[in-house]
């Protein structure tokens, strides 16, 4: 045993220019950013206000930023795959198979675990406590730990770019291929430890949010008064609590096979790889609902706000959400109809899979009926919502098609399947994330994003998505299987060229989004959201200033209605002043910031890296460090900070003044409208 375990100079891609230079480039950019921040003197601010922050809003923003950076990384993988398949007709292309395999594995892993999940968890963090009318989540420090563990997992995945290699078995490491015998390198280990670490973070998020939603709501907020986003967040987090331990256990078993010579999934000594298929999809199918349910919640908020109407069929929406939550655990086998379960079992799971389309259909109709008869405003978030409804319905229908076992036998592992899940994930989850991003951006930062560029980005994404994945259905039906590094079927070629063009259009969409941020930040002074309610919103997140003060609400709101803020505004217009008189301001106790999350994640990275490279002394050091962090945190006496009453009063009075002005303007507008009417 050497000091550095399996780690040698051969782990670094010194002879492969592509990963070497891209890795070096990223490394240099990171160094440059750190140096720049340090020179500008921002490090203490970042440390005090962001890295150690336990404020749910800031953690939410950091989650979203992590997701955005990882989206760029995963999208580069997408560009590489599309261009490889565009040129690899009767030719090896520019990516050798071993590299191409890493690219599609990394693309899937990153997009699901480090893009879609941080997007959704980020938006939940930012908005759920505000919508519930409370001051923070149930366990603020744990929340920070969750975020930093997710970031630690993302860091490990990206580290594999320059130190060693990533896994080549796809985004789910199916045994026996992923066993030590067939994948002796560190790739699968990188995958497993990165996902174990970030998975623990996600599980903690689930515990945190289930507790928050069930135990911490403003007075008067019964379950049937909770905003739809909170309901879908509840369902998603219940799924996290029930599903993520399965992922942890399954990858734990695979790791035991690889590290200790166990025989869970090996093809010798009685190991059973079908056990892996069942377990991983018992997590994997609920996982897709963990992603899509919050997106459904975002669309519910957006459609209702921009139609100027309460959500149609609120209760049926709750039933549909919870039905999906439960049925999502009864369909996992449809991911491997072809693996010999037999006709009866396949039929049961096929029918269960089709049944899920019913509550989802209920939701689509509810959104449509919310728009029907409403005053629809076609803002950017609303465009994302409408684009979603049209595209997702098609993705859902191809899903029902795949749920029919005989059809699935033809389409299994084909590009038709890949087109289906990109259809529901891009047009569902990603569009949902972008709708939520544009909708709640002013709440997070206090100014509205540029609408013109936002709409342009939407159209580029929508068109780009269909150009990229519409042909995927066609080549799939023509028999093209997924993950092909090269091919020699002439009929596929034109479609694959079109798909490459689609990715280029999506790239333009992403560039437009970057431009949108730059332009909006530069012109932020005239985009200020002074009242905290830029969209004429309906739920409590709009009842506080933008960005909200650390304590969210000077006094907890009293909820008497399903749309508490809309109710408040309507009554304010009737009586001509703000509904709630100025409260008796009191000092507010808020949790103190702590570096616990950051330090824990540091030790998690150290431990994970050491485990991957079999550096056992470092593993022990990392674990001892984690335990020490835990004890130091547990030992602190001073864990809360008092925000003085004067400060609370100052922040709240400013917001009340802005709202009063706005109310008077509104009433004057109405008056003049009434007078101008014949």
């Amino acid at each position, binding site marked *: 045993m050497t000091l550095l375990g399996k780690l040698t100079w051969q782990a670094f891609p010194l002879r492969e220019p592509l990963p070497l230079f891209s890795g070096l480039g990223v490394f240099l950019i990171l160094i440059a950013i750190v140096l720049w921040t340090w020179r500008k003197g921002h490090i203490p601010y970042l440390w005090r206000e962001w890295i150690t922050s336990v404020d749910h809003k800031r953690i939410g923003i950091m989650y979203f930023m992590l997701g955005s950076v990882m989206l760029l990384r995963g999208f580069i993988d997408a560009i590489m795959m599309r261009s490889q398949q565009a040129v690899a007709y009767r030719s090896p292309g520019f990516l050798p198979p071993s590299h191409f395999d890493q690219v599609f594995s990394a693309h899937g892993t990153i997009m699901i675990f480090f893009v879609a999940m941080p997007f959704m968890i980020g938006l939940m963090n930012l908005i759920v406590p505000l919508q519930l009318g*409370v001051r923070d989540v*149930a*366990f603020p420090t744990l929340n920070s730990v969750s975020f930093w563990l997710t970031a630690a997992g993302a860091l490990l995945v990206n580290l594999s770019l320059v130190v060693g290699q990533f896994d080549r078995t796809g985004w789910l490491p199916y045994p026996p291929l992923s066993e030590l015998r067939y994948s002796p390198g560190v790739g699968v280990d990188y995958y497993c430890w990165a996902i174990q670490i970030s998975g623990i973070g996600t*599980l903690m998020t*689930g*515990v*945190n949010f*289930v*507790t928050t939603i*069930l*135990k*911490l*709501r*403003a*007075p*008067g*907020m*019964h*379950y049937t*008064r909770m905003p739809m986003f909170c309901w879908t967040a509840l369902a998603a987090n219940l799924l996290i*609590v*029930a*599903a*993520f*331990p*399965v992922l*942890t*256990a*399954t990858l734990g*078993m695979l790791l*035991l096979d690889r590290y*200790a*010579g*166990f*025989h*869970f999934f*090996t093809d*010798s*000594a*009685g*190991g*059973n790889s079908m*056990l892996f298929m069942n*377990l991983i999809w018992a997590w994997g199918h609920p996982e897709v609902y963990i992603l899509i349910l919050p997106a459904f919640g975002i669309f519910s908020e957006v459609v209702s706000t921009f139609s100027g109407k309460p959500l149609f069929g609120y209760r049926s929406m709750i039933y549909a959400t919870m039905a999906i939550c439960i049925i999502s655990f009864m369909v996992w086998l449809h991911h491997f109809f072809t693996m010999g379960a037999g006709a009866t079992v396949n039929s049961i799971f096929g029918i269960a899979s089709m049944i899920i389309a019913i509550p989802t259909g209920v939701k689509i109709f509810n959104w449509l009926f919310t728009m029907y008869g409403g005053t629809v405003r076609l803002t950017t978030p609303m465009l994302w919502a409408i684009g979603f409804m049209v595209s997702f319905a098609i993705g859902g229908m191809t899903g029902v098609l795949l749920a029919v076992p005989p059809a699935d036998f033809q389409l299994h592992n084909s590009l038709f399947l890949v087109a289906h899940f990109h259809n529901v994930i891009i047009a569902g989850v990603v569009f949902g994330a972008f709708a939520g991003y544009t909708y709640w951006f002013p709440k997070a930062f206090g100014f509205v994003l540029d609408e013109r560029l936002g709409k342009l980005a939407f159209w580029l994404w929508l068109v780009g998505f269909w150009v990229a994945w519409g042909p995927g259905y066609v080549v799939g039906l023509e028999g093209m299987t997924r993950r092909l590094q090269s091919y020699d079927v002439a009929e596929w070629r034109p479609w694959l060229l079109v798909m490459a063009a689609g990715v280029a259009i999506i790239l333009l969409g992403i560039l437009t989004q970057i431009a949108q941020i730059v332009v909006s930040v530069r012109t932020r002074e005239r985009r200020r959201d002074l009242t905290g309610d830029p969209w004429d919103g309906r739920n409590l997140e709009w009842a506080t200033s933008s960005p909200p003060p650390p304590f969210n609400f000077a006094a*907890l709101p009293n*909820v008497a209605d399903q749309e508490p803020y809309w109710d408040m505004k309507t009554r304010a217009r009737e009586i001509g002043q703000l509904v709630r008189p100025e409260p008796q301001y009191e000092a507010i106790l808020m949790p103190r910031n702590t570096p616990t999350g950051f330090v824990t994640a540091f030790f998690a990275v150290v431990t994970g890296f050491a485990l991957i490279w079999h550096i056992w002394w470092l593993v022990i050091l990392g674990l001892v460090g984690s*335990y020490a962090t835990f*004890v130091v945190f*547990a*030992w602190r*006496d001073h*864990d809360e900070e008092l925000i003085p009453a004067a400060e609370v009063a100052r922040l709240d009075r400013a917001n009340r003044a802005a709202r009063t002005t706005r109310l008077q303007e509104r009433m004057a507008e109405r008056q003049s409208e009434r007078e101008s009417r014949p």
Partner: protein
Amino acid sequence: MSAPSSALRTGRDPYHLGHGPATGVPEYTGHGGGGPAPKRIVVGYGFWIFILSDVVLFSCFFAAYTVLIHARNGGPGPGIFDLRNTAEETACLLLSSFCCGLASLAVGRRSLLWTEVALAVTGAFGLTFIVLEAHEFAGLVTRGYGPTHSAFLTAFFSLVGCHGAHVTAGLLWLGTMMAQFAAKGFKENIRHRYLCFSLFWHALDIIWIGIFTVVYLIGRTTP
């Protein structure tokens, strides 16, 4: 602690386990429209949710065990388990939980001495359990029935070992808890932490009852 116990005597619902806030009591449960629940309830509830997720984790290892129980690779089946050792382990674990309950009573009475004594005995029984389990494992390995021998043994060692790892982590927590009581006394957040610890410790008993039944009892009747 005197307020809830007097409330118990008067037949009220001190922890508001029913729906909605009880009238005249300022503490809410978070049910219905009563407003945010107090910290004790939030902490205990959150930890319960975590325990449920841990139960799901164990369920996977249970599933793997029942799937792989016949995959013996020419080796032995559950006949190799020594039920006497299992009985001793069970006794240790249940007594440990009983002492943990006594420690809860001592915390309720704010008696540092009895808290520490009860926790020490809790830990001693837990440690004995771990020693017995390690003894069982070592015996199997020396007879050539280690976890690498067959899928059945893999599943057995993992399921029982996962429980053992939880007990070991619990012992570490227990030691930290004792140090905290000694250093900081019965502060509110320390008591909340102790509430979580006792939930954890009792939950491990429930898991053990599952292991006792599925692995050792049913296992003995499996050919």
